[in-house]
């Protein structure tokens, strides 16, 4: 399957699409393949096809019994997904924005995440929670958070976080057919911006295995580890620093649970330096876990302490200037890289 991945990324033949279309394709393919796959969430049916149009066309094609519009009842949405998953379905629930996980977290962590374990393996919960997330759109403190760290700290839930349309499609198809609950994080800013975030998307039933990181750029001096939209900022940083002869390798984790630590260690083994970048608040973010793991496993090899670049330790502010200061930017990544040299 890794081959498929590499193939896909090399293949120029595939049509360039925005991430939203790639996600729509994955849902379409999954529903076509398996009648047990259905979608539920707020406003996801036609007309409208979701507030971000990600599920456009699907209720018309598969019917409103399989693309189910719900009330504003997130706990009921996740609960219905949990029960139907145990009963043999593969529900894909949409939580409109990641901050809203806070109103249904009990169903996510105490139930979706623990039921397999509490039942001694008798009742797996094969479901996906798709959620859009991220700052940068002037939505303010309650519509901009990235909370993957909460889930990573809660055993039982897998976490996928794509950076490209192809990865989004390949990871979502894998998520839907995975036998565990998967939180699938979609950074809103990438949905429809083809210019900045578009990419070639392989057709059909294209899957990317979980736990396999993707080296998006090879380099020799510093390893930049990231996921989601920040991978693009890491690539921009790498391009910028290349002009000075600083060679950055960019490792895109793609899934955080499971996490391809081996790929990270292999890269750091080569570079002896690492910078971890994510948009989520830095304090107690996933960067802390990965930084600890690298230090624990490679302490003697490291030429410098691992650096972290994350969101400011604040709620997300509204004012545009403050909001962009909150989000890690290329110059922040660049500064962190220099610290390791």
């Amino acid at each position, binding site marked *: 399957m890794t081959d498929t991945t590499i193939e896909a990324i090399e293949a120029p033949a595939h049509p360039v699409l925005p991430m939203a279309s790639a996600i729509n394709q994955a849902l379409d393919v999954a529903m076509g393949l398996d009648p047990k796959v*259905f979608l539920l969430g707020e406003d996801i049916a036609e007309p409208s096809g979701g507030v971000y149009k990600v599920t456009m066309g699907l209720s018309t094609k598969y019917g409103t*019994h*399989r693309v*189910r519009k*719900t*009330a504003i*009842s*997130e*706990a*009921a949405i*996740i*609960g*219905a*997904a*949990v*029960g*139907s*998953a*145990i*009963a*043999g*379905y593969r*529900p894909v629930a949409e939580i409109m924005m990641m901050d809203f996980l806070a109103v249904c977290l*009990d*169903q996510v962590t*105490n*139930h979706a995440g623990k*039921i*397999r*374990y*509490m*039942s*001694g*393996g*008798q*009742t*797996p919960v094969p479901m996906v929670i798709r959620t859009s997330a991220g700052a940068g759109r002037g939505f303010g403190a309650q519509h901009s958070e990235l909370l993957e760290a909460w889930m990573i700290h809660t*055993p*039982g839930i*897998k976490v996928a976080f794509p950076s490209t349309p192809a990865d989004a499609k390949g990871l979502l198809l894998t998520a839907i057919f*995975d*036998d*565990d609950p998967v939180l699938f994080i979609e950074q809103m800013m990438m949905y429809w911006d083809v210019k900045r975030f578009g990419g070639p998307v392989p057709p059909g039933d294209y899957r990317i295995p979980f*736990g396999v990181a993707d080296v998006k750029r090879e380099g020799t001096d510093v390893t930049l580890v990231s996921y989601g939209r920040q991978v693009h900022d890491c690539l921009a940083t790498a391009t910028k620093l290349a002009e000075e002869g600083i060679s950055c390798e960019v490792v895109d984790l793609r899934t955080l*649970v*499971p996490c391809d630590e081996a790929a990270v260690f292999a890269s750091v083994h080569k570079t002896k330096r690492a910078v971890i970048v994510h948009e989520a608040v830095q304090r107690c973010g996933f960067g802390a876990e990965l930084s600890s793991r690298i230090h624990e496993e490679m302490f003697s090899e490291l030429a410098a302490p691992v650096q972290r670049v994350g969101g400011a330790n604040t709620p997300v502010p509204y004012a545009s200037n403050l909001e962009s200061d909150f989000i890690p930017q290329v110059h922040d990544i660049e500064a962190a890289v220099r610290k390791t040299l």
Partner: protein
Amino acid sequence: MSERPDAPDRDTLLAMFEIQSRIKLCDERFRSLLTSGQIQLIYYSPRGQECISAGWAVHLRPDDYVVTIYRGLHDHLAKGVPLRELWAEFLGRATGTCKGKGGPMHITHPASGLMVTTGIVGSGIPIANGFGLAAQLDGTDQVTVVNFGDGASNIGAFHEGLNMAAVWKLPVVFVCQNNLYGEHTPMKMSTGVDFISERAAAYGMPGVTVNGNDPVATWNVMGEAIARARAGDGPTLVEARTYRFYGHLMGDAMEYMDKDERKAAMEADPVVLYREWLVSNGHATDADLSEIEEVITAAIDDAVEFAMNSPFPDAAELYTDVYAETGK
């Protein structure tokens, strides 16, 4: 205790007695072993609420789904969870329903249709909708019965779950086992209505209150609600009024409960009264019922011995069943 024109046939009457007795005798065994210190666990006695579970159980098929809560022993037994595996799970043994990893608050036995037991108040309700939705999408006539307490009717999950079930006409029966207390708090101190069934109207759902200590009345109400769900006519909220004989959990000082209220409730023990009614109305002889009780007692003896002699889970079990693949 005269004859009841609304009573079911003899087999059903005895089936309900068998379930009630199984619950009563199992509970008595748990409490005696706990009191004597032979076993140690956090125990939520269902004693007093037997008739409710028996009332829905006899209407259900093995492929119907049941969801319940930490105070779930009566529901587990009513749905047919086998005694050996149940006892072993309560004792945290490798031979338990959940390999000892779930415990009493999380008894799960899909083979009997006991799908989820949750320790979070109210959270089984939205999950039950998922089972109902699966049956509806499958086009089967399977029914889901979800049990919860009076206190649970004040939490958000109740509201969201009942609304979704009503809007989607799901084949789910919401059984509120109203024992008048939520932990140490009387219902009237926490709840804006006198009858939980009044809340059904907020979802355009039928709601009914029944004396959950009256096996025949409960059987009738459960029968209607389950038939409605099976026919595809949507959900019902059934409030069954009952009483907790032994407070919230084993060791509860019950200082917050009215002594006379409790004394009266225990004197009107629904299982004892039902037994007398069966005999006095000639549905069974004392001997018939004693035989049923003896069979159950023997089965409990066997289950206790099985559980006590079962090994604890292997240390490696700590890390399995977290994900489909171990070691992620």
